[in-house]
């Protein structure tokens, strides 16, 4: 039958449009009433125990997998395989994710296993995903599954968790326990070390920082003014009134260590920090030392800080993603003209200095 025949057979001239309209109207009304009744009278059973109708779980899970595959395309950093990245990720995981996904050598609680959908054990959950997909899932979360999104807008600090997820499949319970050990049972020390020195280039050392800076920064993390998923999680474990005491305690440890031998890169950083005639980049040392007069304790000491951490923070400053305290406007202006080479040189210079507090900084 040709299309012309079909149209002729339908005889549109004989359709009674008012009847069609009324029929559709009544159907729409009935549909609306039915839907409204489901919402208003609780007719839909939301029981996790009852679960989904046959086939619905498959549809939802397949939609989830395909949605992630379609959207994930972040480029992993070169440092993804570094032990320091894995360790940092493990510690964040231990604080934020272990409750639902358990850990190598441990089981999920009976309560967690009664969730619907059931959060998979981590060794099972990490199968069949690529790093960019891990990154997307951890950053974005999965709605209607209980999987939360990353508690920050910045996404570079998701990568340590991804680094951990790419390794967790081959970890034993002992490996995991070693990575997430808390010295003296202290939560902060898990990442930052018993004396405020993490020994991990991705985790800043705190022994060089002033009480003022630590206090202002912890408040900034807790109140969301400084963007970091890892520290947002950490600071949500700490009550606001404990911050002063915590800052005082963390500031107590005295830095020690030797100056590293200076190479070409560090020399370039030194020249830049002293601003030899540069009309774009202010002299870093005017705020971060070495300086002959006392500096504002709200400025962090950088002396002996880890280079990868410094580089990461400088990039955040330059790109306008770093903030927090009342003096952060100064640094936004200072970092706006830095290029990647200058950032590497500056990080190398300050990382090479002997660990010291702000006013003790020297080269």
């Amino acid at each position: 039958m040709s299309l012309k025949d079909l149209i002729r057979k339908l005889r549109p001239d004989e359709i009674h449009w008012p009847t069609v309209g009324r029929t559709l109207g009544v159907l729409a009304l009935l549909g609306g009433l039915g839907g409204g009744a489901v919402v208003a009278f609780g007719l839909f059973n939301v029981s996790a125990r009852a679960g989904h109708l046959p086939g619905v779980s498959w549809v939802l899970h397949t939609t989830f997998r395909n949605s992630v595959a379609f959207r994930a395309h972040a480029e992993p950093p070169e440092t993804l395989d570094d032990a320091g990245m894995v360790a940092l990720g493990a510690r964040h995981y231990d604080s934020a994710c272990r409750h639902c996904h358990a850990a190598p050598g441990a089981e999920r609680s009976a309560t967690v296993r009664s969730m619907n959908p059931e959060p998979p054990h981590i060794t099972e959950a990490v199968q069949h995903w690529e790093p960019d997909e891990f990154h997307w899932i951890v950053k974005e979360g999965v709605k209607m599954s209980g999987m939360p999104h990353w508690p920050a807008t910045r996404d570079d600090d998701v990568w340590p968790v991804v680094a951990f997820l790419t390794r967790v499949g081959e970890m034993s319970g002992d490996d995991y326990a070693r990575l997430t050990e808390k010295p003296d049972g202290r939560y902060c020390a898990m990442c930052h070390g018993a004396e405020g020195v993490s020994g991990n280039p991705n985790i800043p050392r705190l022994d060089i920082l002033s009480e003022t800076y630590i206090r202002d920064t912890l408040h900034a993390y807790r109140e969301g003014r400084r963007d970091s998923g890892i520290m947002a999680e950490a600071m949500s474990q700490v009550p606001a009134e404990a911050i002063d005491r915590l800052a005082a305690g963390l500031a107590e440890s005295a830095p020690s260590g030797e100056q590293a031998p200076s190479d070409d890169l560090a020399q370039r950083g030194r020249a830049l920090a002293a601003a030899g005639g540069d009309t774009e980049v202010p002299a870093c040392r005017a705020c971060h030392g070495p300086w002959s007069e006392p500096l504002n304790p709200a400025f962090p000491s950088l002396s002996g800080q880890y280079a990868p951490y410094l580089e990461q923070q400088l990039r955040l400053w330059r790109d306008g993603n770093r903030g927090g305290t009342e003096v952060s406007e100064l640094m936004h202006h200072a970092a706006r003209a830095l290029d990647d080479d200058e950032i590497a040189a500056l990080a190398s210079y300050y990382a090479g200095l002997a660990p010291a507090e702000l006013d003790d900084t020297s080269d």
Partner: protein
Amino acid sequence: MSAARPGLLCAALLLSACSGEQSVLAPAGRDAEVLATLFWWMLGGAVVLWLLMNGLFFYVTRIRPQALSPRAAEALIIGGGIVFPTVVLAALLSFALSEMPKQREPGENLTVRITGESWWWRVDYLPEGSDTPIASANELRLPTGQRSELKLNASEVIHSFWIPALGGKTDMIPGRETRMSLEPTVPGDYRGQCAEFCGESHALMALAGVVMTPGDFAAWLEKEAAPAAIPTSAEALRGLAVFNAEGCGGCHAVRGTEAAGTVGPDLTHLGGRVTLAAGILPMERDALIRWIRDPEALKPGARMPGYDHLSDAELSALATYLEGLE
């Protein structure tokens, strides 16, 4: 009479813009005099021509509306349409061209390097025989009685240097040095203005032009070349401590101290300048405090960050220290 009054008022208003510190028609230098002379000659000529043309129209329509004889018409067309304009324009062109070399004459004794920044002026003085520039900012001081050389440049975008009372304008182009020279004649305070749109705070990029007698200028330059005054009062010393603690030296230089930044204006003799923030504020302590607290509010897009985290006492001490840098 009553109809003429508003017209007179308008003319008076217009003319009032012709005098003062930033006027082409109140010249205080040789170059501005030439330009003003040229302007008056042009204006006078234009008025004469206007009267002549209108007189002619009046003559041929009202006094003698009938046709001219072919001979008279030809004389009028050839004389008034070809010969007269050729002679007048050639004379004006010769006059204008003859004045141009003076505007391009090289300066002697003193060279000043001026760089257009966003949105302020970097001013370095290079006296004859000196290699080290004397750094200053936002103010151009020149002696009378000599032609000083100006070397112009820009850091990011095009600006244009112009102090109307002293001379013409010259564009400042990033990566290319342009030049001009000025020979001021009347000591006094004048005002310059960036004359090329250069971004959101273009209108707030002014420049103080100070013309001094040769003796005064020499004394001033000697003082400008010296290191900064050492503060003595307790308040100024507190201000110096704030200056150090807040990292001001990262961007600003105060010669004779550790502060050697070159991102912002040199502050060695800030208190001795007539204006603040490139001509937009008077050099007063209240203005200093307002500027340091929130530059963005006074000059949108300014590179200087705000120091609103400082207490009133700290800002006041800082202003005292800076005022004392004369």
